[in-house]
């Protein structure tokens, strides 16, 4: 390995390595802009996705905190300083502790300060908080934008954009993505989409306020923010469309010599199926967005029924449209989207479990076939979100049947991952802790979904806090824990240093306890019949009185959860420069992403890798070391 200077920073490594291993005859010096901003290197783009997505996650989390404040203290003035001060503090701390390139740390510090400013703007002003008390209209904006930001700007870009971009080409032994320039366009399209969403808070009437589902006709008659939402979505759809084409072509075409499909790491399989879902499920939402845009801008009536009366006045439109059509088009995307959220997480957990149990994954083939079947089935379950629309019992029966069928591959995957633990001598590293916690958390999320997938119980539970508890268990302690696991796991490959273990464990245990106190009470409230999207948390309903005290529990737990994320942020920036140094393969992993210098140079591999075996050859009997990298040549006398 190349000797390392003491004060080199991660991105400088990449840059420096670029010069060392350039295989064109000439030195090519890329300036700051080409290297960090308009880069075409999949690793830099992955990091751009990662940083942007983490910031959006943090912002989406802040929106949730404002909501939770309101739910615990409806009608009381907001103490905005509790929101703004920690963010501003983080901004300052980041600037001082990170020690990365001054321009970059200043940029990130300023972003946190900017976010503090944005939250200050959102928690003040007469059109949102007259006298410091939240208006219901503003609560609706928070709900819609929290969902939109968390899903489309946070979790998916982190799981697919960041991890997919950084890890997939490395794991398949490719020099880069198949279309590097397209990759750059994907990121910038995502960035513009995200910016459009943020700017929408400043237009008259504020951001979109019809829920992240944007159900018509409410969304058609909503304020300007909804138009911004549609435009933002078109950019995000473009981004994921280009990204998914790129991923599929990369995985199919650029696999290293000897890397057959059944030798692909499980993570790559998960990304491949995810890309197909993005490719085929997003266009119908784009179509729906175009139709809704026409409804809003050109006065058409695709989603507006005849005789619609708004605020006591008959709407002047042609009529004849169908609000349910929007729901069909929306959920045709949004159900596969659920699997887009969860599959990369399952992939990450698979990698980490194999690595930390020092055993092959149990049932690799059934995992792969289950993921493929899951991807296929996810296209024909969408209307289980619509049992209450009156679409008819025949259709409901069809969709509840397919929903029960899709739970089978999910259970196979979870079971295979759990059986993989059996008989292992487990290394309880920080990534493994998060991966282990993922299993029961995703299990709770999945199992609580079964009653929602059957029409009769869904009629009782639909649109209650039970639903919110259910999908947050899948996405927050499920997917997000897996993504945290991935960050702790691949951090040493990116930076050359591991994240601090003690802080990591504090982050894990704190988050694990707190997050259950946030989401478990939602099941109780939901079973009691408390509806979601109530800006006062159910205070005005008699049937909610018995479970209102839980609002306080959840809100306090949310603050505790937030506090433990600060530990993560501090650990992240502190470890960039001061973390323990790691060699190229600190976890003794078998896959190709660890068989390259740290950080991987431009072009990734010093020699073209050749693959000789499956992805998880751990503890092979008769071998000296307990792991055999995929690219280690066979020596005579050893079993293949």
């Amino acid at each position: 390995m190349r000797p390392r200077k003491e004060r080199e920073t991660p991105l400088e490594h990449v840059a420096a390595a670029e010069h060392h291993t350039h295989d064109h005859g000439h030195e090519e010096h890329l300036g700051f802009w080409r290297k960090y901003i308009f880069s075409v290197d999949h690793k830099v783009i992955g990091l751009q996705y990662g940083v942007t997505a983490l910031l959006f996650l943090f912002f989406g989390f802040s929106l949730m905190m404002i909501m939770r404040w309101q739910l615990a203290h409806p009608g009381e003035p907001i103490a905005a300083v509790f929101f703004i001060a920690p963010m501003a503090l983080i901004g300052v701390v980041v600037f001082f502790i990170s020690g990365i390139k001054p321009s970059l740390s200043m940029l990130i510090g300023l972003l946190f300060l900017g976010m503090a400013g944005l939250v200050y703007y959102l928690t003040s002003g007469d059109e949102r908080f007259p006298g410091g008390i939240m208006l219901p209209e503003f609560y609706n904006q928070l709900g819609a934008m929290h969902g939109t930001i968390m899903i489309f700007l946070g979790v998916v870009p982190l799981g697919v954009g960041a991890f997919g971009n950084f890890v997939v080409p490395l794991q398949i032994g490719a020099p880069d993505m198949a279309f590097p320039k397209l990759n750059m366009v994907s990121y910038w399209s995502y960035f513009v989409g995200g910016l459009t969403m943020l700017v929408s808070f400043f237009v008259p009437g504020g951001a979109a306020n019809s829920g992240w589902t944007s159900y018509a006709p409410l969304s058609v008659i909503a304020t300007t923010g909804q138009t911004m939402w549609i435009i933002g979505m078109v950019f995000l759809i473009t981004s994921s469309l280009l990204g998914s084409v790129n991923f599929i072509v990369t995985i199919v075409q650029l696999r290293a010599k000897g890397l057959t499909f059944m030798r692909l790491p499980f993570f790559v399989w998960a990304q491949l199926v995810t890309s197909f879902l993005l490719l085929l499920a997003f266009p119908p939402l784009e179509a729906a967005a175009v139709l809704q845009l026409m409804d809003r801008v050109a006065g058409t009536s695709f989603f507006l029924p005849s005789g619609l009366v708004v605020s006591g006045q008959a709407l002047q439109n042609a009529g004849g449209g169908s609000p349910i059509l929007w729901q069909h088009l929306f959920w045709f995307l949004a159900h596969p989207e659920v699997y887009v959220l969860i599959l990369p997480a399952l992939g990450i957990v698979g990698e980490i479990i194999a690595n930390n149990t020092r055993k092959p994954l149990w049932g690799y083939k059934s995992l792969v076939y289950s993921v493929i079947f899951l991807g296929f089935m996810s296209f024909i379950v969408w209307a289980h979100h619509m049992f209450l629309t009156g679409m008819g019992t025949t259709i409901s029966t069809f969709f509840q049947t397919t929903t029960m069928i899709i739970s089978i591959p999910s259970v196979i995957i979870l079971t295979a991952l759990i059986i993989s633990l059996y008989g292992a001598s487990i290394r309880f590293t920080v990534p493994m802790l998060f991966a282990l916690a993922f299993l029961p958390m995703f299990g709770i999320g999945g199992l609580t979904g079964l009653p929602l997938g059957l029409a009769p119980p869904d009629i009782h539970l639909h649109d209650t806090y039970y639903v919110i508890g259910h999908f947050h268990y899948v996405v927050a302690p499920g997917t997000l824990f897996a993504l945290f696991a991935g960050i702790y796991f691949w951090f040493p490959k990116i930076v050359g240093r591991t994240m601090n273990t003690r802080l990591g464990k504090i982050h894990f245990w704190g988050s694990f306890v707190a997050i259950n106190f946030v989401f478990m009470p939602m099941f109780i409230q939901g079973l009691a019949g408390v509806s979601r999207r109530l800006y006062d948390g159910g205070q005005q309903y008699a049937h909610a009185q018995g479970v209102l005290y839980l609002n306080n529990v959840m809100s306090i737990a949310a603050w505790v959860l937030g506090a433990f994320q600060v530990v993560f942020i501090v650990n992240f920036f502190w470890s960039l420069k001061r973390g323990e140094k790691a060699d190229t393969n600190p976890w003794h992993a078998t896959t190709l992403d660890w068989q390259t210098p740290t950080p991987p140079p431009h072009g990734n591999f010093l020699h073209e890798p050749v693959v000789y075996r499956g992805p998880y050859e751990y503890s092979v009997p008769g071998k000296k070391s307990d792991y055999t990298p995929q690219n280690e040549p066979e020596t005579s006398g050893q079993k293949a």
Partner: protein
Amino acid sequence: MQIPYTVTPRSDTGLFNGKLGIWLFLASEVMLFGALFSSYVLLRTGAPTWPRGWEELNIPLATLNTAILITSSVTMVMSWASLMMKDFNKFRRYMGSTILLAFGFLVVKAFEYGHKFELGHFPSTSNFFAVYFTMTGLHGLHVIGGIVVNSYLLGPGSKMWNTEPERFTNRVEIAGLYWHFVDLVWIFLFPSLYLL
């Protein structure tokens, strides 16, 4: 650093990267127009009375446009075939005609739109015209996209013929696949909007 299979096909998949990429892109386009056609079907079958309006459409002009687009698909194939036969001048002639025909399609379409507006038919008039303008409008955007790509290949992009002729031929092939798809969408639009 060189990304493999940008020009030559990978032996086990039989494809070069761009070709797989365009087929995947077209698959997503099928889903986009598929969703729009399904919406049209659902709205039309769900309506108690589907608003009349197709009598107002100009079938002869649309037939002309269909002929124009099919011809342009033929010239597109010929331009690719010319490159395969290493005849660059022929390529320029055929590619030029493809672009001209595409412009011709848009001009005819503009006359149709203008005439509808004169008669007071707007997207907001009825759901029939909403579907008509939205779907033909989106198709028109795709035609414009094709014109941009083809013009690039005829103009500045054609320099590649001198340096990497095989890669340039591949690019024309990919642009051709896209162009045939745009043609195909119109072939579905024409009967379902004008004739049914």
